[in-house]
């Protein structure tokens, strides 16, 4: 994720989305592809998407804002998702989240000041039989206690 990279040009964006235009229902795959490349969906992509898909800009914007996954600004270098759903709560997810926040001095959706970690809530990772669960980027971790969390945070440079 190039946080300081210059804003992508229209050509950059077209190069990513045009190959997907022949899919049935191409908008979500396009948004995922953009977010994969830039760590977020750049504002400059909205008019290009609207043009390629023959949609209004407001419509494109409405889709982007509907989904929790799409960001309008880059996250930290790592994203830590802590599961907040019921099975994880039954195994102490709430206190795990609270103690993590105390350590980092941040809360949901915030990024640590050094830009290392953004913490997000997630509602179930399908790891409900080894709760509480978290995901650091694409890596899943189960039965997370404070010690395991400390290890993850230090690996992530928080």
């Amino acid at each position, binding site marked *: 994720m190039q946080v300081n990279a210059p804003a992508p040009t229209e050509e950059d964006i077209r190069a990513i989305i045009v190959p997907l235009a022949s899919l*049935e*229902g191409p*908008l*979500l795959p396009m948004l995922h592809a953009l977010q994969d490349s830039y760590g977020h969906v750049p504002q400059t992509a909205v008019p290009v998407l609207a043009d390629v898909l023959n949609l209004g800009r407001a419509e494109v914007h409405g889709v982007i804002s509907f989904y929790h996954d*799409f960001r309008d600004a880059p996250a930290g270098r790592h994203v830590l998702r802590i599961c907040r759903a019921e*099975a*994880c709560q039954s195994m102490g997810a709430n206190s795990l989240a609270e103690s993590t926040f105390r350590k980092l001095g941040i809360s949901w959706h915030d990024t640590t000041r050094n830009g290392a970690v953004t913490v997000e809530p997630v509602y179930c990772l*399908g790891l409900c*039989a080894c709760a509480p669960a978290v995901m650091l980027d694409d890596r899943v971790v189960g039965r997370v206690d404070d010690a395991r969390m400390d290890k993850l945070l230090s690996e992530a440079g928080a």
Partner: protein
Amino acid sequence: MKIYVPIDSAAKALGADEVAETIAREAKSRGIEARIIRNGTRGMIWLEPLVEIDQGQGRIGYGPVTPEDVPALLDGKLDSLGPVEEIPFFARQTRLTFARCGVIDPLDLDDYRAHGGLAGLRRAAAMSQADIIAEVTKSGLRGRGGAGFPTGIKWKTVMEAEAPQKYIVCNADEGDSGTFADRMIMEGDPFTLIEGMAIAGLGVGATRGYVYLRSEYPDAIRVMNEAVRIARRNGVLGPDVLDSGRAFDMEIRMGAGAYVCGEETSLLNSLEGKRGVVRAKPPLPALEGFLGRPTVVNNVISLATVPVIFEKGAQTYADLGIGRSRGTVTLQIAGNVRHGGLFETGFGVTLGEIVNEIGGGTASGRPVKAVQVGGPLGAYMPANKFDTPTGYEEFDRNGGLIGHAGLVVFDDSADMLKMARFAMEFCAVESCGKCTPCRIGAVRGVETIDRIAEGDMAATELLTDLCETMKDGSLCALGGFTPLPVMSALTHFPDDFACHKEAAE
């Protein structure tokens, strides 16, 4: 020697990758000739990483294995669990949908075939469309995604619809807390889902399929994509499915973190690239679904159960179960429970048997307080409902629902007022925004529960009214069923709502 180390994400979340790496390294340094196979999980999550060693006399289980255990494991000095299929939790199951999960290498098509894979599709490929539908109907299979709608009836509607293009859409959004059966089978036996979708395609005359898979499951997405490529390369998918002269192909699509997109019409909107807002029914998706075309929308487990129905025959499947709930239920036992995991058995086993006997009670060792069955829209069942048998109608009669068959166990430290508040909060966060009782009602619900927590007991009446309004005025089950966990918490655990008052006084 063959050594199996699961690649399922629950096993990975408990350290299976490190164990597999250590085994590879240690085996090499000891000069042991070992083939390491990354299988799916058997579903006994409390034993993960569950390593199995086969030296020609069956698979012996060890677990949970840590990297530090590996030298002893390879020296034959680690205590074993015995033959893995004789572990009581596993031995007492009836594994049909999950017959291969944990047994085979998920992406080895030959292994799949050697374990009964493709037999169902081969049989279906020789049948007429009407006979395929009749077979599914006869099996009694009902949708495993939550609503329990008879699969055969849905397929018949799509089969009879005239259209230039029809679709099979697999609902792999699995957003309910306490559920992981979809994930487990997609990671552990992905060809089963592909085979089920192909049979559905042949049955209704659809040549194209999509799996709408939640973005929270990157491992499942990777495995499914690879499995589709392998299936295509081997003629399981494509213009001539298993040389039948009939076409079916499919793609994997990733969701974008919206719970409501598990609702079938919201899912279709999302798949089309729109906001995941729920559509009013009619029209039924079966008649006007994806891009306005006739579409079968089925849950992963519904579709993944179809191959075994065709392999073993509808009657064999229908012979299991109770009442109108035929076949097997794929229970997911989760939360504060000693033996958590996937347990497949004929419908009819009672809630109490599942929680106390199979699950072994709580992980904390404290008494069980409540079990939420069926995800965030399901009821909190107290211990005095533990004689409820698993069955769609049986649960309904007892004020609950089976949903996707996930069970979340809570011990006596759980505060049911907080759980009720969470149910409302979740509804507020995930509402698609179309109906006021859901969008605004859920926010009011949180506020009202906060008032109860502050000692305003009059607010319980308000909460009850609000729940009535949500139930009656919501278009889909998100707004319509959130009252279920809330009211079951209030009804069965009134002390958790009253003690706050005393504390405030």
